[in-house]
Protein backbone atom coordinates (compact mmCIF):
# COMPACT_ATOMS: atom_id res chain seq x y z
CA UNK A 1 0.00 0.00 0.00
CA UNK A 2 1.31 3.44 -0.88
CA UNK A 3 0.82 6.18 1.63
CA UNK A 4 0.25 9.74 0.46
CA UNK A 5 3.18 12.13 0.56
CA UNK A 6 1.82 14.32 3.35
CA UNK A 7 1.72 11.26 5.62
CA UNK A 8 5.45 10.69 5.19
CA UNK A 9 6.05 14.39 5.76
CA UNK A 10 4.51 14.02 9.22
CA UNK A 11 7.75 12.29 10.21
CA UNK A 12 9.85 15.26 9.15
CA UNK A 13 10.68 17.68 11.98
CA UNK A 14 10.98 20.88 9.89
CA UNK A 15 7.67 20.15 8.15
CA UNK A 16 5.85 19.48 11.41
CA UNK A 17 7.49 22.52 13.00
CA UNK A 18 6.14 24.77 10.26
CA UNK A 19 2.76 23.00 10.16
CA UNK A 20 2.37 23.40 13.92
CA UNK A 21 3.44 27.01 13.63
CA UNK A 22 0.67 27.61 11.13
CA UNK A 23 -1.96 25.76 13.17
CA UNK A 24 -1.16 27.22 16.59
CA UNK A 25 -2.73 30.70 16.10
CA UNK A 26 -5.89 29.15 14.64
CA UNK A 27 -6.24 26.64 17.43
CA UNK A 28 -5.62 29.38 19.97
CA UNK A 29 -8.29 31.61 18.45
CA UNK A 30 -10.83 28.75 18.23
CA UNK A 31 -10.10 27.70 21.82
CA UNK A 32 -10.59 31.24 23.11
CA UNK A 33 -13.85 31.75 21.21
CA UNK A 34 -15.24 28.38 22.33
CA UNK A 35 -14.19 28.99 25.93
CA UNK A 36 -15.81 32.43 25.93
CA UNK A 37 -19.05 31.23 24.33
CA UNK A 38 -19.28 28.07 26.43
CA UNK A 39 -18.45 29.86 29.68
CA UNK A 40 -21.00 32.64 29.08
CA UNK A 41 -23.66 30.16 27.99
CA UNK A 42 -22.99 27.80 30.87
CA UNK A 43 -22.42 30.32 33.64
CA UNK A 44 -24.95 33.00 32.68
CA UNK A 45 -27.58 31.70 30.26
CA UNK A 46 -28.16 28.11 31.38
CA UNK A 47 -30.87 27.74 34.05
CA UNK A 48 -29.92 26.80 37.63
CA UNK A 49 -30.19 23.15 38.59
CA UNK A 50 -33.31 21.99 40.44
CA UNK A 51 -31.33 20.11 43.12
CA UNK A 52 -27.89 21.74 43.20
CA UNK A 53 -28.86 25.35 42.42
CA UNK A 54 -26.00 27.47 41.12
CA UNK A 55 -23.27 25.16 42.41
CA UNK A 56 -23.86 22.71 39.61
CA UNK A 57 -22.34 25.18 37.11
CA UNK A 58 -18.91 23.69 37.72
CA UNK A 59 -20.27 20.91 35.50
CA UNK A 60 -19.16 23.16 32.64
CA UNK A 61 -15.59 22.92 33.84
CA UNK A 62 -14.87 19.80 35.89
CA UNK A 63 -15.99 16.94 33.58
CA UNK A 64 -14.36 18.61 30.60
CA UNK A 65 -11.02 18.99 32.36
CA UNK A 66 -11.24 15.38 33.58
CA UNK A 67 -12.10 14.21 30.08
CA UNK A 68 -9.12 16.04 28.58
CA UNK A 69 -6.82 14.64 31.28
CA UNK A 70 -7.71 11.11 30.18
CA UNK A 71 -7.51 12.05 26.52
CA UNK A 72 -4.06 13.50 27.16
CA UNK A 73 -2.94 10.18 28.60
CA UNK A 74 -4.26 8.30 25.58
CA UNK A 75 -2.58 10.77 23.20
CA UNK A 76 0.64 10.35 25.16
CA UNK A 77 0.45 6.55 25.23
CA UNK A 78 -0.56 6.18 21.57
CA UNK A 79 2.15 8.48 20.28
CA UNK A 80 4.71 6.87 22.60
CA UNK A 81 3.63 3.48 21.26
CA UNK A 82 3.94 4.70 17.66
CA UNK A 83 7.35 6.11 18.45
CA UNK A 84 8.45 2.86 20.05
CA UNK A 85 7.19 0.53 17.34
CA UNK A 86 8.17 2.50 14.24
CA UNK A 87 11.03 4.39 15.86
CA UNK A 88 9.64 7.79 14.94
CA UNK A 89 11.32 10.45 17.02
CA UNK A 90 8.57 12.99 16.40
CA UNK A 91 6.03 10.67 17.99
CA UNK A 92 8.19 10.56 21.11
CA UNK A 93 8.35 14.35 21.03
CA UNK A 94 4.53 14.45 21.00
CA UNK A 95 4.37 12.06 23.97
CA UNK A 96 6.87 14.11 25.97
CA UNK A 97 4.95 17.30 25.24
CA UNK A 98 1.61 15.77 26.19
CA UNK A 99 2.84 14.55 29.58
CA UNK A 100 3.13 17.85 31.50
CA UNK A 101 -0.06 19.21 29.90
CA UNK A 102 -1.91 16.07 30.93
CA UNK A 103 -0.45 16.28 34.43
CA UNK A 104 -1.77 19.82 34.75
CA UNK A 105 -5.23 18.88 33.50
CA UNK A 106 -5.35 15.92 35.90
CA UNK A 107 -4.40 18.12 38.83
CA UNK A 108 -7.05 20.66 37.76
CA UNK A 109 -9.66 17.91 37.50
CA UNK A 110 -8.89 16.81 41.06
CA UNK A 111 -8.96 20.40 42.32
CA UNK A 112 -12.25 21.32 40.62
CA UNK A 113 -13.73 18.01 41.77
CA UNK A 114 -12.79 18.81 45.37
CA UNK A 115 -14.30 22.29 45.04
CA UNK A 116 -17.50 20.76 43.68
CA UNK A 117 -17.52 18.03 46.29
CA UNK A 118 -17.51 20.38 49.29
CA UNK A 119 -20.97 21.96 48.77
CA UNK A 120 -22.68 18.93 47.19
CA UNK A 121 -21.24 15.91 49.04
CA UNK A 122 -20.13 17.89 52.10
CA UNK A 123 -16.51 16.83 51.69
CA UNK A 124 -13.52 17.87 49.61
CA UNK A 125 -12.18 14.39 49.34
CA UNK A 126 -13.71 10.96 49.61
CA UNK A 127 -11.32 8.04 49.69
CA UNK A 128 -14.02 5.54 48.86
CA UNK A 129 -14.94 7.19 45.60
CA UNK A 130 -13.43 5.19 42.76
CA UNK A 131 -13.37 8.07 40.30
CA UNK A 132 -11.37 10.28 42.62
CA UNK A 133 -9.02 7.39 43.22
CA UNK A 134 -8.68 6.62 39.52
CA UNK A 135 -8.00 10.24 38.67
CA UNK A 136 -5.43 10.37 41.46
CA UNK A 137 -3.83 7.24 40.06
CA UNK A 138 -3.81 8.88 36.64
CA UNK A 139 -1.89 11.75 38.19
CA UNK A 140 0.59 9.26 39.64
CA UNK A 141 0.93 7.59 36.23
CA UNK A 142 1.76 10.92 34.63
CA UNK A 143 4.22 11.72 37.40
CA UNK A 144 5.88 8.31 37.22
CA UNK A 145 6.23 8.72 33.46
CA UNK A 146 7.93 12.07 33.98
CA UNK A 147 10.08 10.71 36.81
CA UNK A 148 11.21 7.74 34.73
CA UNK A 149 12.16 10.05 31.87
CA UNK A 150 14.07 12.32 34.20
CA UNK A 151 16.10 9.37 35.52
CA UNK A 152 17.72 8.74 32.13
CA UNK A 153 20.58 10.84 30.80
CA UNK A 154 20.23 9.58 27.25
CA UNK A 155 17.14 11.01 25.60
CA UNK A 156 16.74 8.20 23.10
CA UNK A 157 16.70 5.61 25.87
CA UNK A 158 14.36 7.74 27.97
CA UNK A 159 11.98 7.93 25.01
CA UNK A 160 11.86 4.20 24.49
CA UNK A 161 11.73 3.10 28.13
CA UNK A 162 9.07 5.63 29.09
CA UNK A 163 7.05 4.62 26.02
CA UNK A 164 6.69 1.11 27.46
CA UNK A 165 5.50 2.53 30.76
CA UNK A 166 2.99 4.79 29.01
CA UNK A 167 1.54 1.92 27.00
CA UNK A 168 1.26 -0.29 30.09
CA UNK A 169 -0.35 2.49 32.09
CA UNK A 170 -3.00 3.08 29.47
CA UNK A 171 -4.75 0.02 30.91
CA UNK A 172 -5.75 2.35 33.72
CA UNK A 173 -7.77 4.69 31.52
CA UNK A 174 -10.62 2.23 30.78
CA UNK A 175 -10.62 1.30 34.47
CA UNK A 176 -11.29 4.95 35.23
CA UNK A 177 -14.19 4.98 32.83
CA UNK A 178 -15.78 1.78 34.00
CA UNK A 179 -15.15 2.39 37.66
CA UNK A 180 -18.37 4.38 37.82
CA UNK A 181 -20.27 1.34 36.65
CA UNK A 182 -18.27 -1.24 38.62
CA UNK A 183 -18.44 0.35 42.05
CA UNK A 184 -21.40 2.31 43.28
CA UNK A 185 -20.42 5.31 45.26
CA UNK A 186 -20.97 8.98 45.89
CA UNK A 187 -20.09 9.97 42.37
CA UNK A 188 -23.01 10.67 40.15
CA UNK A 189 -23.29 8.22 37.31
CA UNK A 190 -22.23 9.21 33.85
CA UNK A 191 -24.59 11.92 32.62
CA UNK A 192 -23.37 12.17 29.08
CA UNK A 193 -21.13 9.31 28.01
CA UNK A 194 -23.73 6.61 27.75
CA UNK A 195 -25.69 5.09 24.96
CA UNK A 196 -29.28 5.97 25.81
CA UNK A 197 -30.56 9.52 26.03
CA UNK A 198 -28.28 11.86 27.99
CA UNK A 199 -29.74 12.57 31.42
CA UNK A 200 -28.86 16.24 31.22
CA UNK A 201 -31.35 18.92 30.19
CA UNK A 202 -30.85 20.07 26.57
CA UNK A 203 -30.33 23.72 27.53
CA UNK A 204 -27.44 22.56 29.72
CA UNK A 205 -26.18 19.97 27.23
CA UNK A 206 -25.19 22.49 24.54
CA UNK A 207 -22.78 24.55 26.70
CA UNK A 208 -21.54 21.25 28.21
CA UNK A 209 -20.54 20.03 24.76
CA UNK A 210 -19.15 23.42 23.73
CA UNK A 211 -16.90 23.35 26.75
CA UNK A 212 -15.72 19.83 25.92
CA UNK A 213 -14.81 21.03 22.44
CA UNK A 214 -13.18 24.15 23.90
CA UNK A 215 -10.90 22.24 26.27
CA UNK A 216 -10.08 19.64 23.61
CA UNK A 217 -8.98 22.37 21.19
CA UNK A 218 -7.17 24.06 24.06
CA UNK A 219 -5.23 20.85 24.72
CA UNK A 220 -4.13 20.53 21.10
CA UNK A 221 -3.22 24.19 21.04
CA UNK A 222 -0.93 23.71 24.05
CA UNK A 223 0.35 20.43 22.58
CA UNK A 224 1.38 21.87 19.22
CA UNK A 225 2.86 24.94 20.84
CA UNK A 226 4.94 22.80 23.18
CA UNK A 227 5.80 20.43 20.34
CA UNK A 228 7.47 23.27 18.44
CA UNK A 229 9.77 23.94 21.36
CA UNK A 230 10.42 20.24 21.81
CA UNK A 231 11.31 19.83 18.11
CA UNK A 232 13.73 22.73 18.15
CA UNK A 233 15.40 21.38 21.27
CA UNK A 234 15.74 17.88 19.85
CA UNK A 235 16.96 19.09 16.46
CA UNK A 236 19.26 21.76 17.80
CA UNK A 237 22.30 20.27 16.05
CA UNK A 238 20.72 20.32 12.60
CA UNK A 239 21.24 22.92 9.93
CA UNK A 240 17.61 23.97 9.61
CA UNK A 241 17.36 24.86 13.30
CA UNK A 242 20.59 26.86 13.07
CA UNK A 243 19.18 28.74 10.11
CA UNK A 244 15.93 29.23 12.00
CA UNK A 245 17.71 30.66 15.01
CA UNK A 246 19.79 32.96 12.83
CA UNK A 247 16.58 34.30 11.40
CA UNK A 248 16.95 32.93 7.89
CA UNK A 249 14.06 30.98 6.42
CA UNK A 250 15.20 27.33 6.11
Amino acid at each position, binding site marked *: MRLPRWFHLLGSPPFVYRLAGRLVPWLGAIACVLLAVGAYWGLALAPPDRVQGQVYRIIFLHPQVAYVSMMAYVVMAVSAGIGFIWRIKLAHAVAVTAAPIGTTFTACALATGAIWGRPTWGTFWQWTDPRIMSETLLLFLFL*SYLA*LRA*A*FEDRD*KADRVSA*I*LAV*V*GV*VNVPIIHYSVIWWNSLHQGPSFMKLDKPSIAPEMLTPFLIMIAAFTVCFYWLLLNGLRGQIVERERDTRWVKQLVEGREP
Partner: protein
Amino acid sequence: MSAFGAIVRRDVRVAMRRLSEAANPLLFFLVVTTLFPLALSPSADELREVGVGVLWVSTLLSSLLALDGLFRGDADDGSLEQLLLSPVPITVTVLAKIAVHWLMTILPLIALVPVLALSYSMPVAALPTMIGALVLATPTLSVLIALGAALTVSLRRGGTIVGLLVLPLTAPLLIFGTRATDFGLHDEPAAGPLYLLAAFAAFALALGPLAIGAALRVGVE
Protein backbone atom coordinates in the same frame (compact mmCIF):
# COMPACT_ATOMS: atom_id res chain seq x y z
CA MET B 1 10.08 -25.59 28.67
CA SER B 2 13.45 -27.09 29.59
CA ALA B 3 14.94 -23.59 29.32
CA PHE B 4 12.24 -22.33 31.66
CA GLY B 5 13.10 -25.06 34.16
CA ALA B 6 16.83 -24.42 33.82
CA ILE B 7 16.48 -20.70 34.49
CA VAL B 8 14.20 -21.32 37.45
CA ARG B 9 16.59 -23.90 38.93
CA ARG B 10 19.60 -21.64 38.42
CA ASP B 11 17.94 -18.57 39.93
CA VAL B 12 16.55 -20.49 42.87
CA ARG B 13 20.02 -21.86 43.52
CA VAL B 14 21.56 -18.38 43.31
CA ALA B 15 18.92 -17.06 45.68
CA MET B 16 19.45 -19.91 48.13
CA ARG B 17 23.17 -19.12 48.27
CA ARG B 18 22.35 -15.55 49.26
CA LEU B 19 19.72 -16.55 51.73
CA SER B 20 20.13 -13.49 53.94
CA GLU B 21 19.38 -11.28 50.95
CA ALA B 22 16.38 -13.40 50.02
CA ALA B 23 15.10 -13.20 53.60
CA ASN B 24 15.13 -9.37 53.68
CA PRO B 25 11.60 -8.87 52.29
CA LEU B 26 10.27 -11.40 54.78
CA LEU B 27 11.93 -9.64 57.72
CA PHE B 28 10.72 -6.27 56.43
CA PHE B 29 7.21 -7.70 56.26
CA LEU B 30 7.47 -8.87 59.87
CA VAL B 31 8.82 -5.56 61.12
CA VAL B 32 6.25 -3.41 59.30
CA THR B 33 3.31 -5.51 60.43
CA THR B 34 4.67 -5.28 63.97
CA LEU B 35 4.95 -1.51 63.79
CA PHE B 36 1.34 -0.94 62.76
CA PRO B 37 -0.24 -2.17 66.01
CA LEU B 38 2.24 0.07 67.88
CA ALA B 39 1.17 3.07 65.82
CA LEU B 40 -2.54 2.26 65.87
CA SER B 41 -4.61 1.24 68.81
CA PRO B 42 -3.80 -2.34 69.89
CA SER B 43 -7.41 -3.24 70.65
CA ALA B 44 -8.51 -6.46 68.98
CA ASP B 45 -11.58 -5.01 67.25
CA GLU B 46 -9.70 -2.17 65.58
CA LEU B 47 -6.81 -4.39 64.58
CA ARG B 48 -9.23 -6.74 62.88
CA GLU B 49 -10.66 -3.83 60.89
CA VAL B 50 -7.33 -2.41 59.73
CA GLY B 51 -5.54 -5.75 59.57
CA VAL B 52 -6.72 -6.63 56.07
CA GLY B 53 -5.37 -3.41 54.61
CA VAL B 54 -2.17 -3.49 56.61
CA LEU B 55 -1.34 -7.03 55.53
CA TRP B 56 -2.12 -6.30 51.88
CA VAL B 57 -0.14 -3.07 51.68
CA SER B 58 2.75 -4.63 53.60
CA THR B 59 2.78 -7.51 51.12
CA LEU B 60 2.99 -5.06 48.20
CA LEU B 61 5.79 -3.05 49.80
CA SER B 62 7.78 -6.07 50.96
CA SER B 63 7.72 -7.76 47.60
CA LEU B 64 9.10 -4.57 46.04
CA LEU B 65 12.28 -5.01 48.07
CA ALA B 66 13.37 -8.02 46.03
CA LEU B 67 13.31 -6.29 42.68
CA ASP B 68 17.08 -6.01 42.40
CA GLY B 69 17.28 -9.79 42.42
CA LEU B 70 15.23 -10.00 39.23
CA PHE B 71 17.53 -8.59 36.56
CA ARG B 72 20.16 -6.42 38.27
CA GLY B 73 22.63 -9.21 39.03
CA ASP B 74 22.29 -10.70 35.57
CA ALA B 75 22.69 -7.28 33.96
CA ASP B 76 25.82 -6.54 35.99
CA ASP B 77 27.67 -9.75 35.12
CA GLY B 78 26.52 -9.82 31.50
CA SER B 79 24.43 -12.96 31.68
CA LEU B 80 21.30 -10.96 30.89
CA GLU B 81 22.74 -10.15 27.46
CA GLN B 82 23.43 -13.83 26.92
CA LEU B 83 19.85 -14.66 27.90
CA LEU B 84 18.57 -12.08 25.42
CA LEU B 85 20.83 -13.40 22.66
CA SER B 86 19.94 -17.04 23.24
CA PRO B 87 17.41 -18.74 20.96
CA VAL B 88 15.04 -19.10 23.93
CA PRO B 89 12.17 -16.60 23.49
CA ILE B 90 12.56 -13.65 25.80
CA THR B 91 9.05 -14.19 27.15
CA VAL B 92 10.05 -17.62 28.47
CA THR B 93 13.09 -16.16 30.21
CA VAL B 94 11.01 -13.38 31.70
CA LEU B 95 8.32 -15.80 32.87
CA ALA B 96 11.00 -17.88 34.57
CA LYS B 97 12.33 -14.78 36.35
CA ILE B 98 8.80 -13.89 37.44
CA ALA B 99 8.25 -17.42 38.71
CA VAL B 100 11.44 -17.25 40.77
CA HIS B 101 10.46 -13.87 42.23
CA TRP B 102 7.10 -15.31 43.18
CA LEU B 103 8.57 -18.48 44.66
CA MET B 104 11.42 -16.91 46.58
CA THR B 105 9.88 -13.62 47.71
CA ILE B 106 6.12 -13.78 47.68
CA LEU B 107 5.45 -17.36 48.66
CA PRO B 108 7.27 -16.94 52.03
CA LEU B 109 5.21 -13.78 52.66
CA ILE B 110 1.98 -15.63 51.96
CA ALA B 111 3.11 -18.46 54.22
CA LEU B 112 3.55 -15.94 57.00
CA VAL B 113 0.21 -14.23 56.45
CA PRO B 114 -1.96 -16.71 58.43
CA VAL B 115 0.18 -16.23 61.55
CA LEU B 116 0.07 -12.45 61.24
CA ALA B 117 -3.65 -12.47 60.44
CA LEU B 118 -4.30 -14.41 63.64
CA SER B 119 -2.16 -11.95 65.58
CA TYR B 120 -4.41 -9.20 64.15
CA SER B 121 -7.26 -11.26 65.68
CA MET B 122 -8.85 -12.20 62.39
CA PRO B 123 -11.11 -15.24 62.50
CA VAL B 124 -9.63 -18.51 61.25
CA ALA B 125 -12.61 -18.89 58.91
CA ALA B 126 -11.50 -15.81 56.93
CA LEU B 127 -8.02 -17.17 56.27
CA PRO B 128 -8.73 -19.39 53.22
CA THR B 129 -10.28 -16.48 51.33
CA MET B 130 -7.42 -14.17 52.22
CA ILE B 131 -4.78 -16.70 51.19
CA GLY B 132 -6.71 -17.46 48.00
CA ALA B 133 -6.92 -13.77 47.15
CA LEU B 134 -3.20 -13.34 47.79
CA VAL B 135 -2.32 -16.37 45.67
CA LEU B 136 -4.43 -15.01 42.81
CA ALA B 137 -3.27 -11.39 43.12
CA THR B 138 0.46 -11.86 43.61
CA PRO B 139 1.36 -13.25 40.15
CA THR B 140 0.18 -9.93 38.71
CA LEU B 141 2.22 -8.18 41.37
CA SER B 142 5.32 -10.14 40.35
CA VAL B 143 4.75 -9.18 36.72
CA LEU B 144 4.45 -5.50 37.64
CA ILE B 145 7.57 -5.59 39.81
CA ALA B 146 9.47 -7.34 37.03
CA LEU B 147 8.30 -4.58 34.70
CA GLY B 148 9.57 -1.91 37.09
CA ALA B 149 12.88 -3.74 37.43
CA ALA B 150 13.20 -4.12 33.66
CA LEU B 151 12.42 -0.47 32.95
CA THR B 152 15.12 0.67 35.35
CA VAL B 153 17.68 -2.07 34.65
CA SER B 154 20.13 0.33 32.99
CA LEU B 155 19.92 2.90 35.77
CA ARG B 156 22.57 2.68 38.43
CA ARG B 157 20.11 3.45 41.18
CA GLY B 158 16.69 2.33 40.06
CA GLY B 159 15.38 1.35 43.46
CA THR B 160 13.78 4.58 44.53
CA ILE B 161 11.88 5.15 41.31
CA VAL B 162 10.47 1.64 40.93
CA GLY B 163 8.02 2.09 43.77
CA LEU B 164 6.64 5.13 42.01
CA LEU B 165 6.34 3.19 38.76
CA VAL B 166 4.82 0.02 40.14
CA LEU B 167 2.62 0.97 43.08
CA PRO B 168 0.00 3.01 41.16
CA LEU B 169 -0.48 0.07 38.82
CA THR B 170 -1.15 -2.29 41.72
CA ALA B 171 -4.26 -0.39 42.80
CA PRO B 172 -6.77 -2.77 41.15
CA LEU B 173 -5.11 -5.71 42.93
CA LEU B 174 -5.38 -3.93 46.23
CA ILE B 175 -9.01 -2.97 45.68
CA PHE B 176 -10.21 -6.42 44.70
CA GLY B 177 -7.83 -8.28 47.01
CA THR B 178 -8.97 -6.42 50.11
CA ARG B 179 -12.58 -6.63 48.96
CA ALA B 180 -12.35 -10.42 48.65
CA THR B 181 -10.69 -10.60 52.05
CA ASP B 182 -13.41 -8.40 53.56
CA PHE B 183 -16.07 -10.67 52.10
CA GLY B 184 -14.29 -13.64 53.63
CA LEU B 185 -14.11 -11.81 56.96
CA HIS B 186 -17.85 -11.23 56.97
CA ASP B 187 -18.79 -14.70 55.71
CA GLU B 188 -19.98 -13.54 52.34
CA PRO B 189 -19.25 -15.24 49.01
CA ALA B 190 -16.02 -13.75 47.63
CA ALA B 191 -16.07 -15.39 44.21
CA GLY B 192 -16.59 -12.13 42.26
CA PRO B 193 -13.40 -10.30 43.24
CA LEU B 194 -11.46 -13.57 43.21
CA TYR B 195 -12.46 -14.19 39.59
CA LEU B 196 -11.38 -10.65 38.73
CA LEU B 197 -8.01 -11.19 40.40
CA ALA B 198 -7.59 -14.41 38.43
CA ALA B 199 -8.47 -12.53 35.24
CA PHE B 200 -5.87 -9.86 36.05
CA ALA B 201 -3.29 -12.60 36.62
CA ALA B 202 -4.05 -14.29 33.30
CA PHE B 203 -3.91 -10.93 31.51
CA ALA B 204 -0.66 -9.85 33.18
CA LEU B 205 1.08 -13.20 32.68
CA ALA B 206 0.07 -13.27 29.01
CA LEU B 207 0.98 -9.72 28.01
CA GLY B 208 3.37 -8.58 30.74
CA PRO B 209 6.38 -10.62 29.55
CA LEU B 210 6.16 -8.92 26.13
CA ALA B 211 6.47 -5.47 27.70
CA ILE B 212 9.16 -6.66 30.10
CA GLY B 213 11.13 -8.24 27.25
CA ALA B 214 10.92 -5.01 25.25
CA ALA B 215 12.09 -3.02 28.28
CA LEU B 216 15.03 -5.38 28.83
CA ARG B 217 16.09 -5.09 25.20
CA VAL B 218 16.10 -1.30 25.44
CA GLY B 219 17.85 -1.52 28.79
CA VAL B 220 20.86 -3.56 27.72
CA GLU B 221 21.35 -1.77 24.40
